């Protein structure tokens, strides 16, 4: 993997998220615990809600527009309607959040 440093863990509020811009759209980086982060695509497949603005609970996020809930592990929605968002490798090292450059590049190629 080809890790790229995108910022400090404390720049993402606990139980909150920040956006990361890429050439092909926004990712949302979630912080669900002190050193627990997830990276997923920011757009809700339902009506394009910005997931980074949703309420974060356990390892899930609720879309701010129409309350679709996504599991950040699998990217799959919970509930009747089935949606999926892309998930990306992310990790925390010495307080820095690292994204996988290759995974983002693959997204742009796709």
């Amino acid at each position, binding site marked *: 993997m080809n890790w790229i440093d995108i*910022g400090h863990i404390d720049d*993402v509020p606990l139980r909150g998220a920040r956006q990361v811009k890429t050439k092909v759209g926004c990712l949302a980086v979630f912080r669900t615990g002190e050193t627990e982060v997830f990276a997923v695509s920011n757009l809700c497949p339902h009506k394009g809600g910005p997931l980074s*603005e949703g309420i974060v609970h356990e390892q899930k996020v609720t879309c701010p*527009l129409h309350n679709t809930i996504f599991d950040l592990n699998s990217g799959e929605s919970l509930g009747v309607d089935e949606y999926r968002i892309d998930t990306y490798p992310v990790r925390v090292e010495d307080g820095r959040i690292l994204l996988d*450059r290759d995974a983002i590049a693959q*997204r742009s190629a796709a």
Partner: protein
Amino acid sequence: MQKLVVIGAGMASGRLLEQIIAANPAAYDITLFNAEPRGNYNRIMLSPVLSGEKSYGEIVTHDDAWYAENRITCRFGEKVVSVDTDRKVVIGEKGEVPYDKLVFGTGSSAFIIPCPGHDLPGVVAFRDLEDTTAMTEAAGKPGARAVVIGGGLLGLEAAAALRLRGMEVTVLHISTHLMERQLDPAAGYLLKKDLEKRGITVMLEASTKEIVGNGRVEQVNLADGTELPCDIVCMAVGIRPSVKLAQDSGIACGRAIKVDAQMRTQTPDVYAVGECVEYNGALFGLVAPLYDQAKVLAKTLLDEEETFVMRELSTKLKVTGCDLFSSGDFAEGEGREDIVFRDPARGIYKRLVIENDRLIGAVMYGDTADGNWFFGLIKDATDISDIRETLIFGPSFQGGAQVDPLSAVAALPPEAEICGCNGVCKGNIIKAIEAGATDLGAIKATTKASASCGTCTGLVEQVLSVTLGDDFVLPAAQPVCGCCDLTHEDVRRLIKVQELKSQEAVWQELGWKTRNGCHVCRPAVNYYLLADWPLDYTDDPQSRFVNERNHANIQKDGTYSVMPRMWGGMTTPQELIAIAQAAEKYGATVKVTGGMRIDLLGIQKEDLPAIWYDLNQAGMVSGHAYTKGLRTVKTCVGKDWCRFGTQDSTGLGIKLEKKLWASWTPHKVKLGVSGCPRNCAEATCKDIGVICVDSGYQVSVAGAAGMDVRETERLVDVATEDEVIEWTTAFVQLYRENAKYLDRAYKWVAKVGLDWVKETLADDATRRALVERFDISQSVYQVDPWAERAQPAEAVKFHPLADLTKEAAE
């Protein structure tokens, strides 16, 4: 015989010497250096020495006789000056010692926060016997006070021990919960509660600014201005591997001395063991892996094959009565699932973390009996898919135990006030039940509990159920959400009765089934806490819907709308120019709203702080068009202009808006003030409407013009503006304190009855007390949220964390 020199007589090197001598007493001619003027003792038992439960003699692991018997040359109290690895000699203060094999066991030293005053006498760490003795001496003075900086394992053991010695102890911890490395917030909450019960003051998110004193510690000052007078300060904020000697000797170090799985450094014939080593990037602080290392190094030095393997660890706190256990990975990792169990009645919290059908982490508080069983499942990576459903109940689960939905009410003490209106305690209700009142009607008749506003009905029924068991059939009630078994009304009442002042307290004491709620319950609980405890609870933006977090209304395309406040609908040319300029600058669509203000639509999130700044410069503040709070006070022009006007309706509207703005309410609140009964401000379909008449003012409440349309009902007629403001404020506060989250005023009034509202507000003392409590809340919350967030340090949070648009193109 080969010469072995060991630098440092700590727990790891002590174990190493034991192992070598046990295997082959003739293997080495051993010299042991120690900077402390004594040999090996059990450092982790310093807490009982500090508390007085043990003496130093009891924790010595190797005494002089043992060293003599095993012919170990002890050079205690002598520092090693340097090591010459070319000549293979260790140079001590009193001379050189040649070696064939050299072991670094230099351990670690306490990290001391370099704040002003850290070097004053009376500031100690909690690492060695000297520190312990200094603290014991300070505790000898009657009424002595201690400040412990650091709420980790070591700091809390020190705090508990000093408390046992009779000191007044305050623990300062920088994080949001105690022992954040080993515990999650829920267990941290219970631990804090237990420590507070034994008289220890715990201050979280406390940042030490300086330690002051004239020649000796006298006081600790915090960054927030708090001053803590004290006789001793114990710093227990962490440890640092002691590696200076190794570094100076040219031995490869990272954060500590780098070793391989045989405990070899990168320099031939030089080894390291204990807290001073780094293996595979990891450092070591707990005793179990240190003993493992000592065992491996002993074999290596005896030319036997052995490999160091990192093991799963578990933590227990050595404080009597604080029963906690944690193991494995519960704070990091992906693809995991939680099982949470809480029993508020017994103060129990358990959380298991599962990944791929394996238990990978466990945190427990209050009942840790199954800790070792869970630890075993973690260590052995046992497949738990078959026992998953009942896993949390432990190995002795027989199939009966379930989470009791009545647990929170069962846990209440008899003096807990169930009915706030009539001051009826749980004990009174139980007495009435025992005297034969076995249904809700009988309870109402005999105790008046739930006979007024009725909000506590659910709790009274639960007391009936807890007391009567199967003889009482509990009516089905709609819980807040899937996270708990209680209704909104129950939760509100219990937050007040039990004085729950944090989210963690609510989750634990009310038996939440999830770690931190969901998008349904968390905004509600956040509101209840801030409404009931404005001075104690801090609003949590992460428990708010996007609009209230970003202080603007999100639109379907992800842009925002920005709406400045126009007090009572009045504006000026200067304000309109500023609004027009902002609209042009940020490309806004401009819309005049139904609430008498101007909406700027289509603003990008990144631009919000800048447009707020511009509007602030023109004297405007947030219109809160996005909150469950005061929206607008709609007015007509009143008697200054209108030929029918009876009073200054615009002026009164502005006064009401200035009083109520920026307060949080269960749902949005809209007001109207009309200057005469022609009612041009449409006041009679608002949450609160005021109609001016010749004789004064008619205040009416509980109107609606949304999904439901309802006319307001008269609350009171008064003669003066001041009385309008007092009654209106008191009504808003009564609504804030009692309504279910997301009930508009008309829905709440329908539930509690307008008569009850009238009766309550008609009492002068009650009404004034409500206004007073509203004012206290406003002292915290009546600030312009835009001005705060337009500051550069806050504004940056509205921008993306990173921009990888160039990166992705590579």
